């Protein structure tokens, strides 16, 4: 199975979401790939709220084993979370642990009305009861490899990289 085209997946994901969002819906990208996807979806869906970005490092469940990630960035949600319809956006959904961390962080900003999850790729291997609301495709990378989103000249593309987990 060949690697899917990220730009085509992005267009498909936007079409899935379009009937379900209002201009007041806010996207929240998960660092780093999810932030790129959220920025692109924001433009394609014509949302009024600027997209937010979460770095879930302070909420990860492997902090005790691995310590704090080296390149932790600031989270920023440039809108009021209270009572809002939010869509978490990530590039690849795998174990579900990042989504759990993101939900925990989100609720420290306020109580949203509804939270959904949009991903470009569901690669299986879930370790938590997490399911995407919107998903462009399912794709299993070959053994020992993981699929990684990159951004070059404002275009998104997918690559395979050795899985170091």
């Amino acid at each position, binding site marked *: 199975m060949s690697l899917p085209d990220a730009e085509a997946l992005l267009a498909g994901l936007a079409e899935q979401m379009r009937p379900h969002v209002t201009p007041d819906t806010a996207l929240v990208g998960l660092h780093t790939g999810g932030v790129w996807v959220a920025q692109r979806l924001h433009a394609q869906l014509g949302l009024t709220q600027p997209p937010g970005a979460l*770095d879930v*490092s*302070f*909420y990860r469940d492997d*902090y*005790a*084993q*691995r*310590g*704090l990630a*080296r*390149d*932790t*960035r*600031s*989270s*920023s949600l440039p809108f009021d*979370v209270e009572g809002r319809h939010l869509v978490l956006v990530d590039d690849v959904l795998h174990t579900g642990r990042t989504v759990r961390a993101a939900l*925990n962080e989100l*609720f*420290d*900003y*306020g109580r949203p009305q509804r939270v959904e999850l949009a991903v470009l790729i569901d690669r299986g291997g879930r370790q938590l009861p997490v399911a995407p609301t919107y998903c462009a495709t399912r794709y299993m990378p070959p053994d020992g490899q993981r699929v990684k989103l990159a951004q070059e000249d404002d275009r998104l593309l997918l690559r395979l990289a050795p899985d170091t987990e």
Partner: protein
Amino acid sequence: MARNPQLNKHGELQHLLTTEGLPRDVITRILDTAEPFAGVAEREVKKVPLLRGKSVFNLFFENSTRTRTTFEIAAKRLSADVINLNIATSSTNKGETLLDTVDNLAAMQADMFVVRHASSGAPYLIAQHLEATGRDHIHVVNAGDGRHAHPTQGLLDMYTIRHYKRDFTQLSVAIVGDILHSRVARSQIHALTTLGVPDLRAIAPKTLLPHDIERLGCRVFNDMREGLRDVDVVMMLRLQNERMQGSLLPSAQEYFKFFGLTEDKLALARPDAIVLHPGPMNRGVEIDSAVADGRQAVILPQVTFGIAVRMAVMAMLGGGNA
């Protein structure tokens, strides 16, 4: 060469004892890590769960309201349980040794000690003792020891300077006041030279300068007006009142005249120069109120940044132990 006692075998922070010998990339990583922690204070819930279930003991053998409070806030914003030991009423007054106190607290499942002590080297002694007895999962943060070091103050000053000035390698920085007795000055000097500040000046009367100040990388100025010329950053030090008793200084008034930071002296620095002070300030002794409350002072932001920097240090120490 002996291993740096602050770093583990992977080169990561194990204890924070001094800024001396702390590699540049470790300092930079602490400052970088503090940035996202600064944002936590802006949120509805000003807490993250990193140190949930961990016990941080504030061991203050010397009084300090501000430093203890900011460490306490930092630990609580990391969700740690914080135990403040009031040493004035503790067992050390009944004759218990420092290491016996540490052993007892370690037996209460302490995960981190934040230590302030009047004797230089006390936090190092504790760290060494913990490692020698196989308890290297317990971390030590120096919150000020004797005349030796006050690393989190030095690091929060670096964070403050970087916040306003960005690039250390272009800066002229003056440290003004009682450098001889100041652990803050020592921590600042080591951090500033490691970060590549090309022009570091020490401004003080001869009686308040350590003899090896030039070896530390400072140019000495006994005339404050000369020393402040065109600097980007002015770091004031607190003049401790007890220095006034002996023969080091004639009087507070006289000190203020020659080494107090006034608006007319500050005018010799660059127009966009910032003024730092570790607090608590002696207005009218080392700093004039017009400067302390003026547009160039960043003294209150220092306090706010200090919490983020202490969160970063504790979060870097507290993870990756399993």
